[in-house]
């Protein structure tokens, strides 16, 4: 009987590994293709070879990127903008989500729906009026302009996400804290918020990605080359007659590195294993 259970566990583990390996291969194969393009000399996008590292591999694209182009400046701008958007997104969503989860107040359902409504409009059609508005407010060519737009794009998901996660935490926790003499805000900040770490991580990652990879708005708002973000800068490799595929691919790989680092840093909270068991109602 014991052995049987052990065998079953082993079999399940083996199946789990198999599925994970298959999906890991599917996930990285196209990215290896990008790597392959970045190593090819002479900007060839297509190749009949299935080899990942071409015979005539060269690191010229990477060298050009860091020495010949203002790649580090774009990187700095992108990091700055993404950092502000991420902090704003996390703080505002943590507050608003809590209100939507815990309080019955007039306009609650309408509010939740309106947040969703902001996502329903085709984004391309919002561009022109958005641009006119930023011009009137004098926010063209400022980081603040893109930061406001990115925050407003990221917040709807973030608020709903936080609201959903607060919903899984029992309100009896705050009641206990209030009885112990905490005020309303302290009960939220000291007792509930730490338990939402996994959701805060998701919200942070999402806000970061919203601003990190965005091109269309950034291209409209940031016209001064010194203010360009990575996606806008990368687009210049496509200018003129031909696309510099090698540069483009190399830059894309490097652009994804900060995201991976951020994920690695945050993922220990995502898999925190913080037992919420004791607080379940």
């Amino acid at each position, binding site marked *: 009987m014991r052995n049987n259970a052990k065998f079953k566990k082993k079999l399940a583990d083996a199946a789990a590994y198999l*599925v*994970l390996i298959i*999906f890991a291969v599917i*996930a*990285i194969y*196209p*990215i290896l*293709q990008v790597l392959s393009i970045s190593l090819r000399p002479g900007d060839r996008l*297509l190749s*009949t070879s*299935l080899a990942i590292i071409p015979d005539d591999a060269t690191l010229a694209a990477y060298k050009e990127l860091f020495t010949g182009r203002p790649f580090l400046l774009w990187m700095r701008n992108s990091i700055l903008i993404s950092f502000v958007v991420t902090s*704003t997104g996390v703080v505002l969503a943590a*507050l*608003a989500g*809590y*209100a939507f*989860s*815990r*309080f019955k*107040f007039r306009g609650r359902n309408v509010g939740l*729906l309106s947040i*969703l409504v*902001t*996502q*329903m*409009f*085709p*984004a*391309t*059609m*919002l561009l*022109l*009026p958005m641009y*006119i*508005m930023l011009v009137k407010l004098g926010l063209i060519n400022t980081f603040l302009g893109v930061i*406001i737009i990115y925050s*407003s794009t990221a917040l*709807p*998901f973030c608020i*709903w*996400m936080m609201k*959903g*996660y607060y919903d*899984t935490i029992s309100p009896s926790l705050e009641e206990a804290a209030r009885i112990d003499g905490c005020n309303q805000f302290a009960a939220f900040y000291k007792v509930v918020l730490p338990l939402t770490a996994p*959701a805060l991580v*998701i919200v942070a990652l999402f806000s970061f990605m919203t601003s990190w*990879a965005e091109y269309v708005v950034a291209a409209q708002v940031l016209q001064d080359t010194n203010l360009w973000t990575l*996606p806008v800068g990368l687009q210049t490799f496509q200018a003129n007659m031909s696309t510099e595929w090698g540069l483009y*691919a190399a830059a*894309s*790989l490097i652009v994804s590195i900060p*995201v*991976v680092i951020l*994920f*690695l840093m945050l*993922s220990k909270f*995502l898999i925190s294993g913080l*037992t*919420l068991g004791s607080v*379940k109602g």
Partner: protein
Amino acid sequence: MIERNRKLFPYLLILPAALVMFGVVFYPFIYNLVLSFSNMSLRNFREWQIIGFDQYYKVFFEPSEPSFYTIFLKTMIWTVVNVTFHVVIGVMLAMLLNRQIKGKSIFRTLLILPWAIPQYIVALTWRGMFNYEYGSINLLITKYLGLPAVEWLRSPTEAFIAVIITNIWLGFPFMMVIALGGLQSISNEFYEAADIDGASAWQKFRNITVPLLRPVMIPAITLGIIWTFNNINVVWLVTSGGEPADQTHILVSYVYRAAFGLYRYGYAAALSMVIFFILLIFSLTFMQRTQATKSAY
């Protein structure tokens, strides 16, 4: 005094987020609403005027190839197939990663890569992979499976499948990360208790995992549907703007083509409003059926 503070508290929590969001969305929305009743196009760019419901009439009844209804149907298929795969693959991988197995941090990192890399370059890479002669997918099909090569991007159906495959690949890591976060809110005690009662793996999934994952997944799925419905990037890049012959459009890429390819701004604005109302009706129904606004406690 205290009673009044209590009532104000939730509004104070929401105020900062509301200011940022509605400031940015409200004005563009009104602007677009006005435009949808106008005759603005390349010809009437400066002296456009309000002409009533003409543009809406054109959206529904103007004979065009492909028609509004065909594109609408395609958009529905596109949305349902994509979101279903995103959620199923995402939740499955999250549950596997939540097991006590070795090397899961490596798998976790590899599996989020499709989300981490800029969409533009991978969409074009997938386009290359679907290429008839050079693409690695056809090379794999013919060399290792011995099957005939597929004309991925030249015929409408195959091109549509190719876009869907690309978008599924791009989207599953997001749902995986959310499901992974959601699983952390489920206490092990539930599973232990179920084990003592002799519950099967399926029963545990059905009666513990699904209901407790719901509060976190429902918002993600609702927004996932809205985003997929309005996702223009992938369609546009993989099929290079609706090729072959405008056969691979979904509604939102059709709006883009009407506005920036054919310069029919009024028409594009009206079509945008139609998309908006489709999604609004959907969301209201979906949220009511899933009771997404209700709290769990």
